[in-house]
């Protein structure tokens, strides 16, 4: 399916989504509350069938926190990027997608570990790399690096 058709399809499922054609991928900006339904529909619909989540990244945009989902369909060979963000830096929370793609379970734990973004309904949301009692979230831009791990 080419980008024009994909764009139509996404807007059919979720009319509030903002769809833009970036240089590399078709990018969909969607509100956090609408994300889970859109992701589920994109995976389950036969024409889109995005079954492979090949990257899930947390991003600190400075004024907001966001998640970027890179999706691919292994049989239909098309790709799409879903983005969602929230301005709540104190308690950012999104719905988990690990019921849709199992790989998200580990990746969401990683995002929680480094950005402090919570995932509603995640089965086992703990830090995955750092110690459980680590203070702060290192990949945030406002993280204070007290013991000079990064700065020299």
């Amino acid at each position, binding site marked *: 399916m080419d980008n024009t058709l994909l764009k139509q399809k996404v807007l059919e499922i979720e009319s509030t989504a903002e769809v833009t054609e*970036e*240089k*590399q*991928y078709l990018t969909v900006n969607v509100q956090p509350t609408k994300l889970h339904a859109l992701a589920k529909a994109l995976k389950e619909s036969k024409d889109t069938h995005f*079954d*492979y*989540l*090949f*990257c899930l*990244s947390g*991003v*600190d945009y400075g004024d907001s926190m966001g998640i*970027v989902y*890179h999706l691919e369909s*292994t049989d239909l*060979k098309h790709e799409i990027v879903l983005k969602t963000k929230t301005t709540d830096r104190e308690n950012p929370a999104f719905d988990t997608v690990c019921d849709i*793609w*199992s*790989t998200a*379970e*580990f*990746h969401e734990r*990683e995002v929680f570990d*480094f950005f402090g973004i919570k995932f509603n309904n995640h089965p086992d949301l703990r830090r*995955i*790399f*750092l*110690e459980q009692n680590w203070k702060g979230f*290192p*990949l945030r831009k406002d993280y204070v690096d007290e013991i000079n*791990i*990064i*700065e020299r």
Partner: protein
Amino acid sequence: MAEELFIKDIEEKEYTINMGPQHPSTHGVLRLVLSLKGEIVEKVEPHCGYIHRGIEKMCEKLTYQQIIHLTDRLDYLSALINNEAVCLTVEKAMEVEVPERVKYIRTIMDELTRIASHQLWWCTFGMDMGGLTCFFYGLRDREKILDIFEETIGARLILSYYCPGGLMNDIHPNFQQRVKDFIKYFRKKLPEYDQLLTGNVIMQERTKGIGYISKEDCISFGVTGPSGRGSNFACDVRKTHPYGMYDKVNFKEALRTEGDTFARYSVRMDEMWESMNIIEQLIDNIPEGDYCAKMKPIIKLPEGEYFQRVEACRGDLGLYIISRGEKYPYRFKLRSPNFSNLSGLHTMAKGQKIADLVAIGASLDYVIPDIDR
């Protein structure tokens, strides 16, 4: 009586043991917490982070030329392929066309890396199954590739040979001849691997039908590379999103349908043959020309987002860069193949014996610094 009760308890009640972080069969500092009933694995829970170095954070304060040297330290057995991910991203963003010569050399070097990595995997796979001889056979042949690297690059493991725009230096005059000699040599030696281990009855009994994962689970967990292809998941980035010379050479994507430990083993064995085929198609035709395109001394990626996928030795390596037009990346995210492959371990090992978990782990071929980054 007391002893009988004790044995009954072990068979029926679930108990937890700790495997690692200092365990030889986890190939590094990976800790697995296992729930067992008797000998049967009920649950595998990986605990990562013992070698986490914060490479993603460090890269936010480094220039693109500097970042290359850190990517070697991810999956150190596919160091050059990791370098290539950064180089391709920068070249694509700066719209630099690299010389043909560079593409040829990079592809040859990538495939040499893949053979060397699979040789070491075969060594450790044999060793985990109790065959120490494998280790000597594999290292004997891997040494020859490392010698080729040493002659051209000056390093053997942490190579850092690619730079944005091309290569750090040209190949050594002996390079082509030595690679051809190696291929000739290794075509004779690879059947020895089959004679020693593949046909071994004990090895087959311990791997066939063990550690099954379905194609659907592979896609869902993002299990890629040879581990995914063992379950018939056609995920080879060299085929799906070609880079370098991969769209111009003929090679087969090694696929198996069984999805067990033996299938993952066979895929890697086939890949070594295919890598040799790729090198043979290119080695005589390296065009003359520059080994590096002209690049500005300070690289500033135009504002935007870039994603590059390459086929590392263990799967689909993704690199996601958000640039705000500065000389440092704003966000540098690595989608490491081992991290996703590890998430499928529980599905493969559930219901198997604890000794088989060691073989399943060996067939996944995880490199811990790539999981922890």
